């Protein structure tokens, strides 16, 4: 996929608007998937994708090609998602609601077996995570970004990124794969 984008990227850098539009068509699914995972909901993800492509278009001439175009675009998307979620915190929309949303009603406590069920439940559990924890576990455990890059994307220290990651994993594990005794604690 990357090699087939190179001619379009070169044309877009030269000011070819049509080439950039074609890049949008070819990359929007993956860009939206990343945004959806980082934001936890479809509406915010759509806003983030729009902002990401706007930023990419405005700065495409500065894209040097050191990294793959898709990598560069994903970094922009992650930055946009972080900015978007930070704006929501400042406006105090439903950040508290995000912290305390209990999605357990949507998770069938009986169906802990089966990879498909776990992945479906994992998507729900990820959406229910606090945004700051969700961002780190998505970027690290799904997209395999190194800690230093995650820290740079989220404008936090590397140690803070690791702490958030461990906390996120622990919350997910306790929610989806509780050990005996933890289930009883949840039921209380």
């Amino acid at each position, binding site marked *: 996929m990357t090699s087939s984008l190179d001619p379009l990227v070169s044309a877009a850098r030269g000011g070819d*608007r049509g080439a*950039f*539009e074609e890049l*949008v*068509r070819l990359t*929007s*699914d*993956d860009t*939206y*998937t990343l945004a*959806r*995972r980082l934001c936890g909901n*479809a509406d915010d*993800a*759509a806003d983030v*994708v*729009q902002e990401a*492509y*706007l930023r990419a*278009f*405005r700065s495409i001439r500065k894209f040097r090609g050191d990294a793959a175009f898709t990598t560069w675009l994903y970094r922009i998307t992650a930055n946009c998602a972080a900015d978007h979620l930070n704006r929501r915190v400042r406006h105090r929309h439903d950040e508290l609601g995000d912290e305390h949303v209990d999605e357990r009603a949507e998770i069938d406590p009986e169906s802990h077996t089966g*990879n498909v069920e*776990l*992945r479906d439940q*994992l*998507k729900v559990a990820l959406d229910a995570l606090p945004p700051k924890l969700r961002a780190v*576990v998505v970027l*690290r*455990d*799904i*997209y*395999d970004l190194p*800690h230093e890059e995650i820290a740079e994307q989220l404008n936090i220290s590397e140690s803070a990124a*690791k702490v958030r*990651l*461990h*906390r996120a*994993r*622990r919350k*997910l*594990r306790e929610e*989806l*794969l509780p*050990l005996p005794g933890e289930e009883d604690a949840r039921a209380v």
Partner: protein
Amino acid sequence: MRDLVRCERVADDLAAAAGGTAVLAPSVRAHVEHCLRCQAEAAQYRKLGRALRAMADDTAVVPVSLVDDVLVALDDDAERARVMGHVRDHRAAYLGGLAAGVAGVASVAGAIVLARARRTAA
């Protein structure tokens, strides 16, 4: 009780070691090797890690209008840039004209004052 406290202490280490982001300290590893509960917890973290990595191959359900909305946003942004460019250009022309007008008025006023001064002197 002591084992539960110990298990609680290594819980964060297990979460850290799950994706290979940390290596268990020898003392922690020694505890896990003899603790069925912590072994079970480590196994659950490995299962969670596999499920997360598998998500990399998934694609979200993309809204039908996503690409169109992005292209419209690009058009709107280009239009805004064009309008702002016009405003800047006209503002520069307006201020330039204003400055020329002020300079013209000032030179006429100066000429009038000069002429009156000469008449008075005469």
